[in-house]
């Protein structure tokens, strides 16, 4: 009996990979979710940095790219997890997953893969626009920049999961929207923090978006506020806190 039980408990190989592929497939089959999350960051970057400034200096286009890349990542993370999980929970789909033998980690990984895949597409578009605007970076800078941008998904996904496990669909959409736009403004992703009113800049320092944006600016050689290791440490602390928050939401949620 106990040997049988142990055997049945062992997760079937490939369950994490299959869950990720299924979540990616679902995300890419939802054009009403995919198009805004992929196109909006590129449209904003093209409009505000390249079109309005007419011929921005490559340095300015690169500094702006740092912020818009973070912006591109936090949308899929906050909406896919916050609004997406809340709606799936209302439909009873999360409960069905939770009574199945799917490991909770694989569930989170699947959603994370979906967010990363749409973020990667959005990043590819704005990187292409940046090159078109004359941004030239060394290969290792591109790699580091992409790592910071894709990595921005993680803390925001956990914050989104915490929201999704606590709020109903409508409340979660509103919260995700508020966080998304709020982070973009006070975190200095659209307008560099140095140009923001002092109080806004101060408030922005509480957002992971600000610290991720500063890290990205450091990678492209733009002027930054504060030191990289401090930003890294703050991001780590926020990520751990968000993970704890998401986990308690998952455990306490009745469904």
């Amino acid at each position: 009996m106990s040997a049988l039980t142990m055997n049945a408990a062992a997760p079937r190989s490939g369950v994490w990979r299959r869950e990720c592929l299924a979540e990616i497939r679902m995300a890419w089959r939802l054009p009403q979710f995919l198009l805004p999350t992929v196109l909006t960051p590129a449209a904003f970057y093209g409009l505000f940095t390249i079109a309005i400034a007419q011929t921005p200096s490559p340095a300015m286009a690169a500094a702006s790219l740092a912020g818009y890349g973070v912006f591109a990542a936090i949308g899929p993370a906050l909406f896919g997890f916050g609004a997406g999980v809340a709606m799936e929970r209302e439909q009873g789909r999360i409960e069905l997953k939770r009574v199945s033998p799917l490991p909770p980690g694989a569930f989170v990984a699947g959603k994370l893969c979906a967010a990363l895949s749409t973020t990667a597409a959005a990043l590819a578009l704005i990187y292409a626009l940046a090159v078109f605007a004359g941004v030239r970076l060394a290969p290792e800078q591109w790699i580091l920049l992409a790592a910071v941008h894709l990595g921005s998904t993680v803390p925001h996904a956990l914050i989104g999961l915490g929201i999704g496990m606590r709020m109903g669909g409508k409340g979660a959409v509103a919260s995700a929207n508020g966080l998304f736009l709020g982070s973009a403004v006070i975190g200095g992703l659209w307008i560099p923090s140095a140009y923001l009113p002092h109080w806004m800049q101060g408030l922005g320092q509480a957002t992971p978006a600000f610290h991720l944006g500063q890290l990205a600016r450091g990678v492209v050689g733009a002027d930054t506020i504060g030191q990289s290791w401090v930003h890294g440490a703050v991001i780590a602390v926020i990520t751990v806190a968000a993970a704890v928050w998401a986990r308690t939401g998952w455990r306490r949620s009745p469904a």
Partner: protein
Amino acid sequence: MFDQDLSIVAALKGVSKRLGGNPVLSGLDLAVRAGEVTALLGPNGAGKTTSVGLLTGRIKPDAGRVTLFGLDPSRSASRARMGVMLQAAGLPDVLTVEELVTLQSGYYRDPRPVAETLAIAGLADLARRRCAALSGGQARRVQYAMAICGRPDLLVLDEPTGAMDRESRHALWATVREAANDGAAVLLTSHDLAEADALADRVLVMERGQILADDTPAAIRALVGGSTIRCRTVLSPANVLALPGAHRAEASGAEMLIVTGNAVATVGALIAADAALADLRVADASLEDAITGLLQGERRIAA
């Protein structure tokens, strides 16, 4: 004593649970056995779905013990042997039926082949259809397929056939029966007493978090004494109750429903008392009659 019964697959022992400050279950004992279809019946708010939530590990009891395959139900080792069809669960709109069932099958260690699962659930023709394009009854069949794809030792079906047409309902009943005959334990909650009557080996009647009756459908039907009489009569329910054998009389519209322990005596007296008697029909008491009687008796005591 309970622990020694090896056929018990899932059990609640002395379980109490409050939700939102109200007691939902109080000291409930319940066992689900291998090879049996156990039906949990009762009015809304009786605690059926809460009991299912406890057995599937989704809710923790305030007091008492819940075991699933002898373990804590939140352990993945117990979930690996269980298939669940929830009362209300949506499907991912953009996946096809086959993709979804394949994904779910992959959660289990030794799943059925997907084609076989689809055939059992009557979905072979719908395999390539996206879930968004399914009717309510078809979506329930997909959820049933997701519940059985892992060859579970415990199949939990919470109101499985609500949105199904007659044909699908009977087809599903046949496959549930087959699963139980193959040794699976089945826990069924239902509002549809015909469903419980057709499927269940054991019926548990719940009200206000307690078990009122735990027996075979036939034994529970016998609790009310055996037969029902329906007719049009000028007599009042009080007059009818005075007839020999009659122990329940209810007027609904022009029709009178009488439950009796002695159909011959009651019908004889009825004909003698009412010359205008019409539309007389006599039948075995249905499970519904029996349970209505049980619940009414309980309410009278409580009041």
